[in-house]
């Protein structure tokens, strides 16, 4: 399953609720304000057991976060986001 999360994890429970129900082989795409979860060293950065994390590059750039991203977070453009959705039959959005 592919999950999208569009809220900062510091002011909103969306990411926490998402991670709680994720399976190991799910993927999480951080979009819009959700990309703040990808900042290296932030207290809400998902741990090593979390599903694979992606961040939408346009949202990362808009928010000035490119130099601050945690290792292991892969960037996607909109085309990559579409392609990733094609690889996952079910998509759940958390907002």
């Amino acid at each position: 399953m592919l999950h999208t999360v569009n809220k900062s994890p510091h002011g909103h429970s969306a990411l926490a609720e998402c991670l709680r129900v994720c399976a190991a082989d799910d993927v999480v795409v951080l979009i819009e304000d959700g990309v703040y979860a990808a900042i290296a060293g932030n207290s809400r950065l998902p741990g090593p057991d979390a599903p694979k994390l992606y961040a939408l590059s346009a949202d990362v750039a808009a928010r000035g976060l490119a130099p601050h991203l945690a290792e292991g977070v892969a960037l996607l453009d909109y085309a990559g986001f579409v392609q990733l959705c094609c690889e996952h039959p079910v998509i759940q959005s958390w907002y």
Partner: protein
Amino acid sequence: MSKRFLIVCRQPPYGSSFAREALDMALACAAFEQRVALLFLGDGVLQLAGAQQAEAIGQKPLDKQLGALPLYDVDALYADADALAARGLSDTTLALPVQALDGAGIRALLTEQDIVLGF
């Protein structure tokens, strides 16, 4: 053709229209003879607190409207056990007969779905 739809409710009632619109979506899917399940997560479990008097704020009571679900044969109703406990609802009578699930149970429920719509 029928697909398995899961409507995920994460918002409390009345403060926004999401709860009402999630229910309308569930009823529409059922009316079109789809397989529908509802999952109440996070603050969504607050929709299940009974004896709501929504007329006090000029709205219709959601708990009564949730009661329409069984009339549409929607009886696959689930709630996050931890969310109920965190909100002090574990031992109260809920507006709907829901099955309380733990994290593993919720993950299993998700794997059974074709389409997940979150509100």
